[in-house]
């Protein structure tokens, strides 16, 4: 499947009514989920135009999440690298430490409006699970988080946080025991408990309306950043850089800039041990279109169409698919997608920590590492905005392990 390239000369209004971004997206689920998805779609469209709902969402983002998050000019790091001036959108300063909460606050309000009493979620690194357990605790909703057994091992701290918040964390032993299997299991739960349960998907994947809905809740990142950059620098940034696993922080930053053709948009996938080794999580760079988890998008699959195991130092990027809107933006040429290895991501991690006193998440470190390549190729009057999607506290054990340090 290839997209029919159509230049972006008209207002951007995707997806269509059935959730399609060109050939991507859509609703690929078993019949039992069709009605709940339709109900969700109706509720989402209704409340996104409901001023009372939007006011409550806005108040929660301001007073509970701590928005707006600042844009920070990383002067010392910029000087060190030479070239473009680098700015960071500080999503790491949000409550719970990452961009994930922007979406869970929104979906939880929607769940409440729809009268659902039980929340389920899938999680990889645990950030989305924590952000979901957080809003569920606040609203007094029952919360079950599905997490691959492998991820539970490497993210013990987040598992404990979710439990403290009152969530039940279910270890998923099927398949590769990672994020994709947790998503399968959450879908199985949802199909069994559709009447009282709201499924909060954590990224811009899944069946329609999730890719559009999660995007809309995350675009607060880009809307704020656009204004902040105009205010701080007097112009739009020349380039945006964000890491892409499922792609929610990237689309949240990119979306409000899609029609600003002068702004270059770069999504950074996880190259793991290197694209050439096959041990990576870079479907846009090295995969092909297919259907998984309710939508058509780029996937990592073998020659028979079986989904293959992915690898990344960062659990949050360790996913064989990617949001369908990114697949479309790639085919259209509106965004570029590149990849960064585990080793390069660690260099980005250390650089920001040592030069700016900010410890980034390993996911975000992929974006930082690519910026280290890109910034020196740009002029000093140009600006580069990186989405610092999360803080690195959760990754202390991973980084220490790699450096042979016992904590």
């Amino acid at each position, binding site marked *: *499947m290839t997209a029919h390239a159509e230049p972006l000369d008209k207002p951007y209004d995707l997806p269509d009514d059935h959730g399609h971004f060109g050939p991507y997206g859509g609703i690929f689920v*078993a019949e*039992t989920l069709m009605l*709940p998805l339709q109900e969700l779609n109706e509720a989402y469209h209704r409340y996104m135009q409901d001023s009372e709902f939007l006011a409550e969402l806005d108040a929660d983002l301001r007073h509970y999440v701590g928005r707006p998050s600042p844009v920070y000019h990383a002067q010392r790091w910029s000087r060190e690298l030479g070239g473009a001036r680098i700015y960071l959108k500080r999503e790491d300063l949000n409550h719970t430490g990452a961009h994930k909460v922007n979406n869970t606050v929104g979906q939880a309000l929607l769940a409440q409006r729809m009268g659902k009493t039980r929340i389920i979620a899938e999680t990889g690194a645990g950030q989305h699970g924590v952000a979901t357990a957080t809003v569920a605790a606040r609203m007094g909703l029952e919360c079950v988080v599905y997490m691959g057994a492998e991820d539970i091992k490497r993210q013990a701290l987040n598992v404990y946080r979710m439990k403290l918040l009152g969530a039940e964390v279910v270890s998923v032993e099927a*398949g590769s025991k990672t994020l994709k299997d947790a998503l399968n299991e959450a879908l*199985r739960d949802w199909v*069994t408990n559709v009447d009282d349960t709201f499924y909060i998907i954590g990224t811009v994947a899944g069946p329609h309306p999730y890719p559009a809905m999660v995007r809309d809740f995350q675009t607060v990142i880009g809307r704020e950043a656009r204004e902040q950059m105009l205010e701080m620098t007097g112009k739009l940034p020349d380039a945006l850089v964000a890491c892409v696993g499922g792609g929610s922080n990237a689309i949240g930053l990119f979306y409000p800039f899609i029609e600003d053709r002068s702004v270059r948009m770069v999504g950074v996938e996880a190259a793991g041990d290197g694209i050439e080794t096959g041990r990576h999580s870079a479907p846009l760079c090295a995969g092909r279109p*297919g259907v998984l988890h309710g939508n058509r998008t780029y996937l990592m699959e073998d020659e*028979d169409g*079986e989904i293959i195991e992915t690898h990344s130092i960062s659990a949050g990027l360790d996913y064989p698919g990617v949001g369908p809107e990114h697949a479309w933006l790639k085919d259209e040429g509106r965004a570029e997608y590149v990849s960064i290895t585990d080793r390069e991501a660690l260099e980005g991690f250390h650089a920001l920590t040592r030069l700016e006193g900010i410890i980034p998440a390993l996911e975000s470190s992929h974006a930082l590492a690519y910026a280290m390549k890109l910034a020196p190729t740009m002029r000093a009057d140009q600006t580069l905005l990186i989405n610092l999607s999360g803080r690195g506290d959760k990754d202390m054990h991973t980084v220490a392990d790699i450096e042979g340090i016992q904590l």
Partner: protein
Amino acid sequence: MSRLTTRFNDLARTHRKALIPFITAGDPDPEFTVPMMHAMVNAGVDIIELGVPFSDPMADGPVIQRASERALEHKTSLRHVLDMVAKFRRQDSTTPVVLMGYLNPIECMGYDAFAEAAGSAGVDGALTVDMPPEEAGALAPMLENAGVYPIFLLAPNSTDQRIQTIGAMGKGYLYYVSLKGVTGASHLDVSSVERKLRQIRRFTDLPIAVGFGVKDAETAAMIAGLADAVVVGSALINIIEKNLDRRETIESEIITLLESMRSHMDASVSA
């Protein structure tokens, strides 16, 4: 005429209901599948649903998930499954075979290539679990052109409007998922199945098969009293899984269960 239509016409003439076993191709290994298909036909089944293994079977419960995993350990791909059907057809030209699986292996092979290969292998129907009618506009006509009926699911929460749409698109039979949940769940509710089938029949004349939650001969007999066909899957795969170390007993235990379902179903329908 399609083998599926012929089969349902014959059953209607003799006032019998179809017994449809589901096994995952390649489970516990690829050599097992074709002989088992013949043995099930000898035990009195009418149509065979053959599961195509997939790495991410999101509509299946743990039993069929593990069957898929065992089959994939032997690299049982969609192409292998089509080879198995072709092999089965050399000895059996009348029993309909329906493939049941997920869309991605078909996307990977290519819609036209799959439709052509399935048709020439002797596949009679394809039920693609994660392809609702809304997304079937490209594949369904290609399948029909190749003589393979697109088979669709109905669920307890399918609305009148959806039943109409799906009834108009489906061919061969409709597969009613008896409960909200995944395969192998244990709480099939006969009276709610009865109510829903009445609703479905207002909109379609296609035969209706009922699956999900049929565990034993008694349940099969009750469903046979309501529907045109009874699908049994996880109960058979449970037998495979429990006897992985005693391969020789798998076939006889599956046959015993199917024969018992057959006789209970025939007795309940003629009663």
